[in-house]
């Protein structure tokens, strides 16, 4: 090697030493990474910036996950299975909590947040965060099933299944709408949410005393009613492949009088340029006289992963993002439903968002889907069988008997659903 070569080598060595020295001398920031579905990641950009400004020792980043709920779960589970997940915090759907907790992926929050952590939560929002005596998740955004109705077509929303059918039929006969009621009937989780509301409205239960009760007369009547909506032309047959976007599409084009959907649809329907802006009301699901009007709870909450090496910083980020101020901002700028009572009762928010008290009332009517680590299996059995009924392949009674048999078999083979 010539002299030149030596010189080049030496300067490279010195240069890299210098760079590593500079990097090492910088104050060490504690990295905290959160995985969120894309819409939430977009909505929290400013909050994250504020947090990082106020916490110079923490570097909070949000990974923009997929749009679809289950795709986010797939991504999270894949990373957790490989061990050493790159995420410290996960924004989770309510139904994942028992499964993730049982798998040992979550850090119990009881010790971190204190006993009164849930005291400010609005009724309904406190559900679905605990499992097996521990708190695993803190709710960031409340979500519950709503019945959307057209204020320009009727004075008040229907309160019973019969009223819903009667209003639909009369509006359809007058030619004012093509269909009465659109909802989620595709073979997927959304159908379990839809069905649960009808089931409770008919006086039935998914689980009774911790065991499946899906062959009860009420459960059969509930699935029979959903099918009869298709038979009577109140609901189009395409409902058997309808998820939220398809139902919203039919409703927002003015083709339907009623729709079952989540609060996000309210913002969509009242966007500037929407033909239904100002013509939509919200209510809870119809029910038989004497039975409750319920809303399936579908909230999103933050959980700290047990494998995180930055738990203290992660909890700080969790507390910041779910704080009153943050929830207020998320509601004002993005229309997300808060989970804290103090935010629901904020006069500034109520005047900006007059639908807030109605959302609060719907949240108070929230019911949980079964809280069990094997919920995904239970729900898969349910939406598959109810979808078969809706598609008209089988009558409600034998379908629900099959569903009950399969659910009980699952319960036995796994040693109980609770």
């Amino acid at each position, binding site marked *: 090697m010539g002299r030149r070569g030596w010189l080049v080598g030496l300067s490279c060595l010195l240069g890299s030493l210098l760079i590593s020295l500079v990097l090492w001398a910088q104050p060490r920031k504690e990295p905290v990474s959160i995985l969120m579905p894309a819409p939430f990641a977009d909505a929290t950009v400013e909050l994250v910036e504020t947090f990082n400004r106020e916490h110079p020792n923490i570097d909070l980043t949000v990974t923009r996950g997929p749009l679809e709920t289950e795709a986010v779960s797939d991504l999270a589970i894949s990373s957790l299975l490989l061990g050493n997940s790159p995420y410290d915090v996960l924004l989770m759907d309510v139904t994942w909590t028992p499964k993730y907790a049982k798998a040992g992926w979550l850090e119990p929050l009881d010790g971190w947040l204190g006993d009164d952590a849930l005291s400010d939560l609005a009724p309904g929002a406190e559900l679905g965060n605990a499992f097996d005596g521990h708190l695993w998740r803190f709710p960031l955004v409340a979500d519950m099933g709503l019945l959307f109705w057209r204020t320009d077509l009727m004075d008040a929303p229907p309160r019973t299944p019969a009223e819903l059918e009667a209003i639909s039929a009369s509006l359809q006969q007058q030619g004012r709408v093509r269909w009465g009621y659109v909802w989620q009937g595709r073979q997927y989780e959304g159908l379990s949410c839809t069905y649960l509301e009808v089931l409770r409205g008919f006086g039935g239960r998914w689980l009774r005393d911790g065991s499946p009760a899906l062959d009860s007369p009420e459960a059969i009547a509930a699935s029979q009613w959903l099918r009869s909506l298709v038979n009577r032309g109140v609901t*189009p047959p*395409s409902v058997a492949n309808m998820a939220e976007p398809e139902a919203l599409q039919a409703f927002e084009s003015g083709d339907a009088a009623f729709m079952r959907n989540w609060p996000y649809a309210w913002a969509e329907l009242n966007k500037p340029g929407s033909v239904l802006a100002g013509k939509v009301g919200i209510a809870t699901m119809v029910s038989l006289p004497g039975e409750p009007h319920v809303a399936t709870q579908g909230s999103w909450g933050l959980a700290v992963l047990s494998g995180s090496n930055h738990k203290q910083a992660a909890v700080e980020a969790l507390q910041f993002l779910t704080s009153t101020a943050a929830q207020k901002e998320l509601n004002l700028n993005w229309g997300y439903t808060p989970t804290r009572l103090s935010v629901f009762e904020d006069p500034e928010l109520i005047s900006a968002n007059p639908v807030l008290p109605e959302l609060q009332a719907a949240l108070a009517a929230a019911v949980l889907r079964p809280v069990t680590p094997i919920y995904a299996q239970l729900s*898969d059995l349910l939406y598959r069988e109810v979808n078969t009924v809706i*598609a008209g392949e089988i009558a409600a009674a034998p379908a629900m008997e099959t569903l009950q048999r399969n659910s009980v078999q699952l319960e036995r083979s*796994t040693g109980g659903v609770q």
Partner: protein
Amino acid sequence: MFRSRQQLWLMLPALAALTLIFVLPIAHYLWLSVHTQTVLTELKPIPAGAAQWIRLWNDSRFWQDAWQTLRFAGFSVTTEMVLGLAIALLLNQPLRGKSSLRLISLLPWALPTTVMALGWRWIFNDPYGPINQALHWIGVAPVAFLANPSITWIATVWADTWKTTPFVALLLLAGLQNIPRDLYEAAQLEGASAWQSLWRITIPLLTPYLLIALVFRLAQALGVFDLVQVLTGGGPAGSTESLALYAYLNAMRFLDFGYSATVMLGAFAGLLVLCSGLAGLWWFTSSRLSIKGGEP
């Protein structure tokens, strides 16, 4: 097996790669399939003997999905082979703008499956999708393509055919271009019709390519997942659920890894039987075939 030590050494890297990619995962799956590893065992594997295999044998959903997967693969691959051959024959003709035609015909294949499945979900939408709009104009009632168990599986076959026919056409086009022109000229001189040339020259000489396309397509179609997941989610009434989708549900949604591995191995065994049948067919036809296709 190996004629010299050198040959063995030269084969080693390939063997190591194959072991890593095929043998180890399959061995791991076999191990998983005799264990219970679920969310309820807190993801710890517990020896389970043959329990998972007995469960598979008695699982009517597995057999229903196996039948549905076979139906999907059978119909889509057959259609793709026939259409692919027709398109390859067409593209092999001296046409004007041949290269741009070839490029255009490849477009569907270049699209990611999820994207094209979303596209078809919209096209099949009832009643807002383009097909139902067209039906509406000619006064036909809308068809619930994705909500009727006796129609929806055909829609999945259709979407798959649209996407992968170009792949078959491309493979067969390569095969067609390898058939020497002089064979056709000789046949023409002897007074053979175009039909006779097709059956006596083209098809026999194309057989190896047809078989390659068939094996590739069958293996892919029998493992269909993304198309079904996006287009129908396995519904309606479970009528489009494939074995891959069922295995995925068990692993990623139910966290039941032992059973998911068993489902996958069951499907793999079926695929193995099918492919060895095809390999037998290959051996049979190629041993009967005396013409080797003349000059390269």
